[in-house]
């Protein structure tokens, strides 16, 4: 199963094994990862599952949809060109090894 590495703001990294058919947000919350709140439970309504995608992976992710784009404008930490909402990234085998940085804050 694909694994994801999350890098906390203090530089510590955390490895998360994912299972099929879930989003990055779901894998992270199931794992008990601190730093992703996901207040709306993955409905693309809260912007508290914000992540920064490692540059080398950016092009390999599906494009940002309209509602995700609008929500990203409201993230608590600064929106950067590599900002994504982790509930909108579905895990596929090609994403094995994905590296995501966590923002300083989600609210």
């Amino acid at each position: 199963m694909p694994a994801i590495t999350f890098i906390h703001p203090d530089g510590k990294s955390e490895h998360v094994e994912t299972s099929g058919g879930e989003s990055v947000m779901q894998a992270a919350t199931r794992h008990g990862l601190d730093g992703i709140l996901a207040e709306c439970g993955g409905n693309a309504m809260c912007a508290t599952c914000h992540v920064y995608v490692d540059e080398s992976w950016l092009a390999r992710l599906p494009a940002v949809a309209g509602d995700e784009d609008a929500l990203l404008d409201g993230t608590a930490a600064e929106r950067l060109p590599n900002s994504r909402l982790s509930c909108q990234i579905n895990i596929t085998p090609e994403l094995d090894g994905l590296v995501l940085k966590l923002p300083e804050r989600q609210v």
Partner: protein
Amino acid sequence: MTASGTPASTGPASVPHLDVDPFDMAFFADPYPTHQRLREAGPVVYLDRWNVYGVARYAEVHAVLNDPATFCSSRGVGLSDFKKETPWRPPSLILEADPPAHTRTRAVLSKVLSPTVMKQVRDRFAAAAEERVDALLDQRSFDAITDLAEAYPLSIFPDALGLKPEGREHLIPYASVVFNAFGPPNELRQQAIARSSPHQAYVAEQCQRDNLAPGGFGACIHAQADAGAITATEAPLLVRSLLSAGLDTTVNGIGAAVYCLARFPEQWQRLRDDLTLARNAFEEAVRFESPVQTFFRTTTREVELSGATIGEGEKVLMFLAAANRDPRRWDQPDSYDITRRTSGHVGFGSGIHMCVGQLVARLEGEVMLTALARRIARIEITGEPKRRFNNTLRGLDSLPVTITPA
């Protein structure tokens, strides 16, 4: 756990039939044993009292919420089926609509209540919370419902909408009618509707463009009509959605949080030790008390749900509150734990209709609990809490407390 076998003519035999009335006073006084009975009877049950299907486990409630094509909202999210009965008021353009109509109106309210907008109102909401605590510290002993859970949202939300100062006393009574009207034709619903006309007249008037101050949520909705996203006749009805759903819900949400924190002093202490827990303390109260207890859907076709076959045109009652305490989903569901991972609870619903005002509610809850916990050492309940009865909303009518300053 009696699941009485009623003849198949009043509902499918394969589904357990229960004789409970989830809209009567005895149930409202203590819904938890019945919630458990509903969950344990089966994934899908049939309630003979009102001839509806019911789902009370997390998995089925979540599944129904997330299949709007099969479990629609346009035939009403109360017991009344709009295909068979005339709605008591013109239907909501968002709550009681299905895609694609819903998609359009939803986009408008999502924009008006977006995270970006919340950043703009945050300081104002926080300052008002501090002012409320100033007043409460002067009082020391007060009613935590009237003087806190109602007074705080009333001090910010009508202004945020841009409402005139006159007539605001109609707001909570109007919302109470709206939420009673989702219920069955019992005394609560009939009386609420019978007395609703002055409140309806007030609300209809306030939704008009001229009555909404520039810069408020209401004016922003009307501005969306200029932008072509909705028509000028739709705008007032969308403003109405905020008047219906934006105030009494947060009154009950904040009331729930204060009631929890007053009842569980160790959680209050944890919050005082770490104020960053305020937002989750509010969220956990929404899970634990579920201020919005239930909503209905109507099936658009015959469907199989967890082994039960439900015909077309059937009403399905979703017990959000029971799902939020389903032991299949939650560890120690009956304990209020402000450090719990609350993500996934259905207190705000789930799927396309998930509460469009959830960010407003969380902001109010967070800043209010932060202000309270920073400046108050203890909250003691000093009298018998009194319950307020409503077909959909769960909350208190009065909660006498005494506070000790920090």
